[in-house]
């Protein structure tokens, strides 16, 4: 089941990554730049150096107030319109981290200043006050598909006539908490990610990221068709080995994409099994579609990745060129994996997909309105 083609448009979309705003990030990806750098996994507490892509000048160690607030303010200043969070203009805040880095600092130092941003609702409430939003602010947290769910709920609110416009705002900033967690799972290690490359061992990188999208019934050059979600509920950190979870999610998007020539922006973190399953499923759902993944440069921006990568996908279509998959060398998991950038003028849609803990899948078709 996918959402029917609701008359909802993307009026505005933007992001920030370690490489800059959407335009700068897209340009850097076209140049094949990698934002990931080796950083001790626990920041000042040391540990193995792992690939992280932090915003320029930002430390992995949490500050009080958080040092990512300035980046959030800067991104927010680029959002057109006012009265967000008022009746008819709801905000959907998404992410998987919120201020959880403060909890690590709180436990290490005992300084109560770190507690202030620690819980998702409290963090969002402070952000709401800081950014001048009204009280209609929903908070969505479903690990790395969080941003997709924000887009889905915002689309439904606008399509149902409950909102004129809706703002989806997502942010995830790294901390020893999240880096330490993924390191404990052993998928964040000293290796740099090589999404969709064959190899003996997989590795991911993590990245700072924040993004927004304004959805509107009336305005906008883009639509998100066939929004689809699916939850395997097979294991916390692995997918069903037959790839059926990917298929079930993508079948709804494939129906929306029928008759279109599309390219596929995958999740592509750099893990081997999920990468292979995703490339195979994309080939079944969208035969001939080139597959790209950008987390080998940006790192995995976690709950915000769906929105960060939507902004880059839109920038790619605007610019007429899609960055290829970055990271690693050697043979790919399939001939469909594009390792070089390509002209996208002949395509009339891009499928953007993300995955998360619990075998959660989410995807949509980005196309011109």
């Amino acid at each position, binding site marked *: *089941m996918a*959402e029917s083609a609701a008359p909802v448009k993307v009026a505005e979309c933007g992001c920030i990554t370690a490489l800059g705003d959407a335009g700068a990030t897209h340009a850097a990806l076209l140049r094949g730049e990698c934002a990931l750098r080796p950083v001790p996994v*626990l920041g000042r*507490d040391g*540990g193995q150096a792992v690939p992280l892509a932090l915003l320029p000048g930002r430390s992995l160690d949490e500050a009080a107030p958080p040092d990512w607030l300035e980046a959030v303010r800067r991104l927010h200043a680029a959002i057109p319109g006012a009265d967000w969070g*008022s*009746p*008819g203009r709801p905000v959907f805040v998404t992410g*998987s981290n919120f201020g959880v880095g403060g*909890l*690590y600092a*709180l*436990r290490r130092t005992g300084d*109560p200043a770190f*507690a202030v941003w*620690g*819980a*998702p*609702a*409290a963090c*969002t*409430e402070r952000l709401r006050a800081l950014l001048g939003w*009204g*009280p*209609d602010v*929903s*908070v*969505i*947290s*479903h*690990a790395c598909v969080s941003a997709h*769910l924000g887009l889905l*709920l915002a689309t*439904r*609110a606008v399509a*149902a006539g*409950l909102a004129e416009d809706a703002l989806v705002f997502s942010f995830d900033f790294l901390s*020893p*908490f999240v880096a*330490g*967690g*993924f*390191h*404990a*799972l*052993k998928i964040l290690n000293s290796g740099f990610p090589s999404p969709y490359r064959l190899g003996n061992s997989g590795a991911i990188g993590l990245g700072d990221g924040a993004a927004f999208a304004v959805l509107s019934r009336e305005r906008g050059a883009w639509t998100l068709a066939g929004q689809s*979600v*699916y*939850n395997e*509920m*097979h*294991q*916390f*950190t692995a997918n069903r080995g037959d790839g059926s*979870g990917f298929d*079930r999610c993508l079948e709804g998007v494939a129906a929306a994409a029928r008759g279109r020539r599309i390219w596929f922006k995958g999740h592509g973190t750099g893990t081997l099994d999920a990468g292979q399953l995703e490339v195979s499923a994309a080939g079944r759902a969208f035969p001939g579609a080139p597959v790209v993944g950008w987390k080998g440069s940006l790192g995995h921006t976690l709950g915000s990745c769906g929105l960060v990568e939507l902004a880059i996908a839109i920038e790619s279509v605007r610019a007429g060129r899609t960055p290829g998959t970055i990271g690693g060398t050697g043979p790919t998991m399939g001939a469909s994996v594009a390792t070089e950038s390509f002209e996208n003028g002949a395509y009339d849609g891009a499928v953007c997909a993300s995955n998360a*803990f*619990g*075998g*959660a899948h989410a995807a949509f078709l980005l196309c011109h309105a």
Partner: protein
Amino acid sequence: MLERHLQALHTDNPGDETPAAARERLKGRFPPGATRRMTTLGLLVGNALAELGPGPDDAIVYATGYAESRALEGFLDSFPTPSPTLFQTSIHPSAVQQLMIGRQAPVREFLPLSGGARFAFHALRAALLSPAPRVLLCGGEERGTWLLERGLASARTFAFAAALSRECAPGSLGRVRLSRAGGDGELGLESWFDLLDGRTPFDGLVAPGWRLEVVWR
């Protein structure tokens, strides 16, 4: 106006019950051995949700403000050698995933939310906008320890799960309706739970411009 019929409801209001007592009380509700790694919130929410027999075509809307406080505390305490199990268990949607993964029960739509003063409205809006024929609106909190001392966890443990359907079937317990109205109001998760637990009628503002009616049969 958004409206659904309340077809089934399960609430769990354990008061000061300890996590060990909750585990003992609920262990028979899960397959043998399954509760060993389940959190208190996972046990309570999982049990409430299981009562409704979640199916693959149901949508699950999960509301919790603080989520897995005890797992989060344990994960933070495990540094500098962080626990992978506590990391994956501490994520926001974990309680529902503990049940559904244990049952190997896929579900199309799963919407985990957090929230504050107007959490009831945001969760209900998400539930009532879902196109699924049946929406299972569940949620709860577990009492924290050192995070609670710093205002970062719930002081109370509770859980609920409600089945909401478009059609009014025999045995319906009541209905919930969101409609436009002037003014502003609030209804947090704990108050929403008390309302469900007491089968208490409600008619009032729950957000700017939004009125909630809960009618029991």
